[in-house]
């Protein structure tokens, strides 16, 4: 039966070509947009995890309330013990302390007077330990543009754009002017080891990086850090596990009323990305829904047109005794074949586009010039197993619905009128 219907479709192109093309177009767009949105949100999630929140983040309760302002006066103290405890209790995450800070970078001339100055946004990270996860997390090797990565204490990395602006070369001495955790003015000299480019406009404008111990010393934060970040080794955020770890950690601290007691949060909640996740979920559903609706209407019309054209054929089939239900079902079966064919074609084309943009990406640097969001300059699509199947839902369902609605007309045909109709 299926072979019979398939032959009919292949031999009568007017029955199959247009619906297949319509389905393929819709499916292609659905597949491509899903991969693109997936890529954009993954980009945001990955960048936010790497540079801001990790997959899990430990702070003091007081710091957590004002984390956006980087209140180092409320930072964690006794972090060596805390990090050791985290590594022992939750060994499936990589734990690393960080200090974020703001300040001015002052470049002296030969006489030691200020030659240039710029506001900077800095991070003190573990750059000198042999087992530090930061090298991988921050992708340091590929980020390096000039000079070398920090080898000794007192080395600092500057965003390449910042270094260009300040006309600073590797090997030069710069002075960081900031604020200690007790509010005094902090002034410390660093040697520019190299320059880096992370491909994120918000970072590349004014970032400086130095070893954690140097920043602790500069900001008078002995054995302290603003945050301790936890990363899953596969670089993928696992919401369920992150929630488990967070709940377990926080349960141990819940009896303390100390506002400097540590508290953990997850990437999803700490970054404000929970809303993004939800929005993307809704958008994906809306996109699929809109294409489903639009294609159903188009295919319904195509079905109506087809029914008109096949008016005679259906009449003959009914006249020679074929049941209405059988005719209806055979048309539904035809539509599912068309839907399947269109979905396969559309998915293939959509995947081709998506894979192309997964490799090449689109450079949005000019649009992100003043952005404070942690988006990379090049946004790439991301193909996941779900991308392969997402198009089949609207593809199959639209043809099914279109035919199901237009085919209702079959039941309105009167057998007594068939021969009369056929005579005309």
């Amino acid at each position: 039966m299926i072979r019979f219907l398939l032959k009919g479709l292949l031999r009568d192109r007017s029955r199959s070509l247009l619906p297949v093309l319509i389905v393929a177009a819709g499916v292609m767009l659905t597949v491509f947009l899903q991969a693109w949105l997936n890529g954009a949100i993954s980009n945001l999630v990955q960048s936010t995890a790497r540079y801001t929140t990790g997959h899990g983040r430990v702070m003091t309760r007081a710091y957590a309330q004002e984390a956006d302002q980087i209140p180092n006066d409320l930072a964690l103290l006794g972090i060596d013990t805390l990090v050791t405890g985290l590594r022992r209790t939750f060994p499936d995450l990589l734990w690393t302390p960080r200090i974020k800070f703001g300040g001015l970078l002052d470049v002296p001339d030969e006489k030691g007077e200020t030659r240039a100055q710029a506001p900077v946004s800095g991070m003190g990270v573990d750059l000198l330990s042999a087992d530090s996860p930061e090298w991988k997390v921050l992708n340091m090797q590929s980020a390096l543009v000039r000079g070398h990565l920090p080898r000794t204490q007192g080395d600092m990395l500057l965003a390449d754009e910042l270094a260009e602006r300040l006309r600073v070369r590797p090997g030069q001495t710069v002075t960081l002017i900031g604020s200690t955790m007790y509010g005094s003015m902090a002034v410390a000299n660093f040697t520019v080891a190299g320059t880096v480019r992370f491909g994120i406009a918000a970072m590349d404008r004014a970032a400086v990086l130095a070893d954690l111990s140097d920043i602790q010393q500069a900001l008078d934060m002995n054995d302290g850090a603003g945050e301790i970040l936890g990363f899953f080794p596969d670089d993928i955020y696992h919401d369920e596990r992150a929630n488990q770890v967070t709940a377990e950690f926080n349960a141990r601290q819940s009896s303390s009323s100390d506002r400097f007691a540590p508290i953990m949060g997850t990437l999803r909640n700490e970054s404000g990305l929970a809303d993004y996740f939800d929005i993307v979920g809704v958008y994906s559903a809306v996109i699929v829904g809109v294409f489903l609706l639009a294609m159903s209407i188009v295919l319904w019309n195509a079905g109506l047109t087809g029914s008109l054209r096949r008016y005679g054929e259906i009449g003959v089939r009914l006249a020679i005794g074929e049941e209405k239900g059988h005719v209806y079902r055979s048309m539904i079966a035809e539509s599912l074949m068309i839907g399947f064919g269109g979905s396969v074609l559309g998915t293939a084309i959509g995947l081709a586009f998506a894979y192309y943009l997964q490799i090449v990406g689109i450079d949005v640097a000019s649009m992100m010039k003043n952005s404070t969001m942690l988006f990379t300059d090049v946004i790439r699509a991301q193909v996941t197993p779900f991308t392969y199947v997402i198009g089949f839902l609207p593809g199959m369902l639209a043809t099914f619905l279109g035919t199901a609605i237009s085919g209702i007309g079959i039941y309105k045909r009167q057998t007594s009128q068939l021969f009369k109709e056929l005579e005309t």
Partner: protein
Amino acid sequence: MIRSLCLFLIVPALVLRPQAPSPAQGGSGDEILRRVDRNMFSENKIVVSRMIIHGERETRSVEAKSWQRGTSEAFTEFLAPAREKGTKMLKLNDMLWTYFPSTDRTILISGQMLRQSVMGSDLSYEDMMEDPHLPHLYSATVVSADTLIGRECWVLDLKATKEDIAYDARRLWVDKARSVILKETLYAKSGRLLKTMDVREVMRVQNRWLAKSILYKDVLKEGEGTQFVVDSVVLDAKIPDYLFSKAALRR
């Protein structure tokens, strides 16, 4: 008031009062303010003082020695703690430089940096840079009388007569007999209370009254305020000229 009290660069303002002023039997607010102002300043002075900063997590003490000439020139060297020892500050008119021995750098404090806290205390560099002569900046009215630490006081409301100053309004409690300010509250243009200052102890030095211990509180900041304690004051001291030059910062 904070500006004039301002610790290390400008000697505590409560200090100076001429011998036996007529006990202020009222008079206008501006007259009382002028008496306070006259009492506040001597030409030269050398002050050794401590700031005890009661932070939210710990209490720290910072010691310094200041040399002041008039109201526009001041040189300060921090003596303790070890982290701050050797840090020097120089004020010349409206310029403020800080020298940090750990970096061998002299930094001009300007712009947003002026709003930063001095050594983590409840006072900002901006406070230090203001003209310490209150009558130059404010008009005063007497609003009531009060008693503080057992002393009869006039309560004055000060309203700024100039734009672009840190505090648009102040309320002062002035000792009627000694013309010493015993309490002060400072307000932003919006009327929001920004800082408070309470004198805990006064002392008499060379026929003038000096606030020996003052508690400053930045109400926008956590912690219990900064206690400023004057350990010694020498008035009308001889101060060499070279101290008031940038070269002195590195000596």
